[in-house]
């Protein structure tokens, strides 16, 4: 054997490898082009055998005599592991509770002959890849007509890619604005988007100042630099501009080691109010630093639901977060019949107050119920068809008087725009008063008044 043959063997072998792979790719491509709907058919038969419910296609037999639907699967994709697991776990608890309420207390979907809902859960993990895997798993194994999820924007986007392909309705609890700006057809979001949080914080401060005859000339917006924090800050800035208030804005990574340089910047600018958009870690650090540096503005309002007013932050920061507010996508103290009831049930079942992650699921899932009722009313022949469902979602106009979902919602009004966002979205505001979080806006808890301005503000003598 000579060197030449060695080289030749090598080359031929490599060519063989390449040909084999290319041949297989070509074969696979051919296979795919021949059977584009392969998996859909598989899952369809699965769903039919398991739940006896028609899913994506309308067959002539179904239009003549619609099969009786006994059970409808509702998917939930939430981060159950990793850094965001706190939210996901609570969302899952909330979903289990609401599903029980719908099935037992409300007798299922009435217009579908009392069909029950069945929750199917998947873990979205920490990355878009993991979220996408979760979505595919859920679709392959269960193929629910409606999925809720996935809290973190880029994970929600990954899930949406799957649900759009499969024509599954995705009710999002990711708040980032851009999620409803992608031209996705089957997405809905009852919860207020990120910029609405920033807007609410400013509206609240301006309204309070007006009430107390104070004027706000300058405001500072400091925000953690995630996509969520940035959108919240943009919403706040837009509103500040509207009111003609001067502002400075500063972004920082949420895992900063020290906040003194940022607080020094604030003190140098000396704004009347600070709008702060924290995550959790930085919220503790900023509140403590502001206190310790002796910075006393008229008011410090949080925006964006994380930090300051949640129980963990209050525990970690102590007195430093007294009188801080934060915006919430849910109002646990809203005095409607069903809200009181659900909050009580949640507390009894899990031994804690529902926070925002649970609240969003409360009303989102109730909206799903209303949409299913509506779909059954509009299209009794095929209520679970995605386009019929979409039509049902879009035709909803829920208010306190006619729906449980609206009673659970901060503004008491849910109606979807064609892009999937709630036209009447709004947030509630919580304030830390004597170390306890209380709802102070738009309708305060009984016996609670918002503390404004901050009592330690030098101008707050009267």
């Amino acid at each position: 054997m000579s060197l030449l043959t060695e080289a030749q063997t090598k080359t031929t072998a490599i060519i063989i490898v390449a040909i084999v792979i290319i041949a297989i790719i070509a074969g696979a491509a051919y296979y795919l082009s021949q059977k584009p709907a392969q998996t859909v058919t598989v899952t369809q038969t699965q769903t039919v055998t398991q739940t006896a419910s028609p899913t994506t296609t309308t067959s002539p037999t179904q239009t003549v005599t619609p099969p009786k639907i006994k059970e409808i699967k509702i998917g939930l994709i939430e981060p159950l592991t990793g850094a965001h697991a706190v939210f996901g776990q609570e969302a899952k608890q909330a979903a289990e509770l609401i599903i029980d309420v719908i099935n037992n207390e409300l007798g299922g979907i009435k217009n579908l002959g009392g069909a029950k809902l069945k929750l199917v859960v998947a873990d979205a993990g920490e990355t878009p890849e993991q979220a996408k895997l979760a979505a595919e798993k859920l679709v392959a194994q269960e193929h629910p007509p409606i999925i809720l999820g996935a809290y973190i924007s880029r994970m929600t986007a990954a899930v949406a890619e799957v649900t759009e392909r499969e024509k599954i309705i995705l009710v999002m609890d990711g708040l980032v604005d851009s999620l409803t700006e992608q031209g996705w057809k089957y997405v809905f979001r009852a919860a207020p988007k990120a910029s609405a949080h920033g807007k609410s914080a400013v509206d609240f401060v301006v309204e309070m100042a007006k009430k107390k005859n104070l004027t706000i000339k300058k405001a500072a917006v400091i925000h953690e630099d995630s996509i969520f924090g940035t959108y919240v800050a943009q919403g706040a800035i837009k509103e500040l501009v509207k009111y003609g208030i001067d502002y400075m804005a500063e972004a920082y990574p949420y895992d900063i080691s020290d906040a003194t340089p940022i607080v020094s910047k604030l003190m140098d600018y000396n704004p009347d109010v600070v709008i702060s958009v924290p995550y959790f870690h930085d919220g503790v650090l900023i509140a403590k630093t502001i206190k310790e540096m002796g910075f006393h503005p008229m008011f410090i309002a949080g925006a964006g639901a994380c930090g300051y007013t949640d129980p963990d932050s209050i525990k970690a920061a102590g007195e430093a977060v007294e009188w801080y507010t934060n915006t919430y996508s849910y109002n646990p103290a809203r005095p409607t019949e069903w809200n009181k009831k659900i909050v009580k049930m949640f507390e009894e079942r899990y031994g804690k107050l529902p926070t925002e992650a649970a609240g969003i699921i409360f009303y989102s899932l109730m909206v799903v119920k209303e949409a299913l009722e509506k779909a059954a009313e509009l299209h009794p022949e095929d209520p679970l068809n995605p386009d019929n469902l979409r039509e049902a979602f879009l035709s909803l106009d829920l208010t306190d008087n006619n729906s449980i979902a609206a009673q659970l919602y901060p503004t008491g009004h849910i109606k979807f725009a064609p892009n999937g966002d709630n036209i009447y979205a709004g947030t509630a505001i919580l304030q830390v008063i004597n170390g306890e979080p209380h709802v102070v806006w738009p309708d305060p808890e009984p016996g609670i008044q918002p503390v404004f301005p901050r009592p330690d503000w030098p101008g707050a003598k009267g």
Partner: protein
Amino acid sequence: MPGTLSKKLALTKERLYSLVGLAIVLALVPVFLGFNFYYVLLATNVMLAASLVAAWNIIGGYAGQLDLAASAYMALGAVITGHLLASFGLTPWIGMFIGAAVAVGVAVLVGYPTFRFGIKEVWYALLTSALVVIMMRIYYLIYGSFETYIPHMEPEWLYLTFRRYEVYYYMLATMLVIIIWVNLKIKDSKLGYYLAAIREDELAAEALGIDVRRYKLYALMIYAALAGLVGGIYITLTGILSFRLFDPWLGIVTAVMGIVGGLGSIGGAVLAAVILRSLEEYLRGAIGATYPGSHLLVYGLILILVGVLKPEGLASLLDYLKKKIIRR
């Protein structure tokens, strides 16, 4: 002389046969998975990890440099491919090579100062670890925290916006075979011998007149290019561009898999990637919800055990099995 030559040839043949075998097995995987979306996507993710670890093996295994920036090079390839596609409609088929070229450029910037003779290896490891963060922050300064979603474009084969995962699977599987082939090629080349000499004793290698810095840089450039290409394919799969792509953890995990696989053993590295990545997915589902972080904890323990007890990693197990099979 003829004896040694034929032995060498036999070895190469054996390698090539295993490579061909691997290609056939990889090609058949989706068929066995019934073209089920979920399993194919899972397999695609495993291929992704395996390709990255196989590329890492060149710098970590052969050149003996603890590189923690696999995710930086990969993400560079990804964001360049992705933004060229999203903003200018440039096909990823070209974009990924531009991305790879940029990754090589950055790699040279990092390697050039740290591969100087007499500089401790630790600085390279640290600089690569910092590199992921530096890149993330530079991306942040340019694009902010906003996410760009790559839209669906036609024709799919040109813009790689398939709605099914098989194509991505095959692309990454092909990439994996190519990377393994590059690995084997390097091992048998002059570069491979020099790198082995440098790993053995850098001082002696330098004394023999080997330009240590240059050969380490070659290894780094090849690795960065491959990681960049993998990134280019990856972004067509996920389609979400954000500064979070520069993930320091992914860099560390890639190195962990390479080390557990056994330094310099391409078979071990790929095996480790396949096992650990699948194990991670399993553990996350099984206990991740009750014990957050447990899958990474297991990684850590495995790493300590391998480092303390068996620095040869999985490769020694592979060798053992191979010997057993051959003896039979």
